[in-house]
């Protein structure tokens, strides 16, 4: 009993443990309603955090290794024409809403075209909106070219 009370008192008079981080990202109109009201910087993420995935279209050689190891089938390939080597190849798009952030594709990619970034703020209203799919612009570009 006493130890509980002492711990509670300790908590009452000690520093609070809340990190007020996400305030910065709330819309203007609610910020003033939030406790503190200050704007706080994002927390520092440890090195090697497995967050948002990014994909370098130009680096990719289309080997398809990533397709083979992905447990969530979070990526999809599409054929392109490799203009440099003048032979058909493929590129990849990554669906953020399917990914499990396991980093297996990063480890397996021979040219380091994929990376997991410390960014984790990914919430959105659309399931597969353009900002939720890595490499979709390139794909669009490519499809337009294809169409011509």
């Amino acid at each position, binding site marked *: 009993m006493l130890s509980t009370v002492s711990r509670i008192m300790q908590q009452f008079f000690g520093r609070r*443990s809340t990190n007020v981080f996400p305030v910065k990202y709330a819309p203007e109109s609610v910020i003033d309603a939030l406790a503190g009201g200050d704007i706080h910087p994002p927390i520092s993420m440890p090195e090697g955090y497995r967050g948002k995935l990014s994909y370098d279209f130009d680096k990719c050689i289309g080997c398809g290794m990533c397709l083979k190891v992905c447990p969530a089938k979070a990526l999809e390939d599409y054929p392109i024409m490799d203009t440099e080597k003048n032979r058909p190849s493929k590129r990849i798009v990554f669906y953020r809403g399917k990914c499990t952030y396991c980093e297996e594709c990063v480890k397996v990619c021979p040219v380091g075209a994929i990376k997991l970034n410390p960014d984790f703020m990914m919430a959105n209203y659309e399931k597969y909106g353009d900002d939720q799919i890595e490499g979709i612009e390139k794909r669009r570009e490519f499809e337009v070219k294809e169409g011509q």
Partner: protein
Amino acid sequence: MKKDSFKYFKRSLWAFHINSGSCNACDIEILAALTPRYDAERFGIKLVGTPRHADVLVITGTMTEKIKDKVIRVFNQVPDPKLVMVVGSCGISKGVFQESYAMAGPVDAHIPVDVYVPGCPPRPEAIIYGVARAWEKLEMLEKGNAAS
């Protein structure tokens, strides 16, 4: 009427959490979002024990066949206006459980979803950020309503 109460959602948001076949990781991160480090209560967010009191349904997991009907029933029990937030990749797209026979499909195949929070699991901050995105959406709705 609808618009007005949306306004108060920004100050007071009561959430009811349903696990529709998740792996618990997302669930514990939601709970963690309430604990001192993240303290979602400072935004007026509270986890309630019955759907009747809820404003937002927080759904984790993939909607297994067996729980599908229950989730839909709970959704109908929540008084209007209401929001639905899906936390975790597997609720968005079945994630790592693709191709399983026991899946009734992603959550949005059965009930309308307002905000998606990708991650497997997303950090508690990312979940709170998801709520901030929901507020933003409400703001947009408000403006849209005001304009029309």
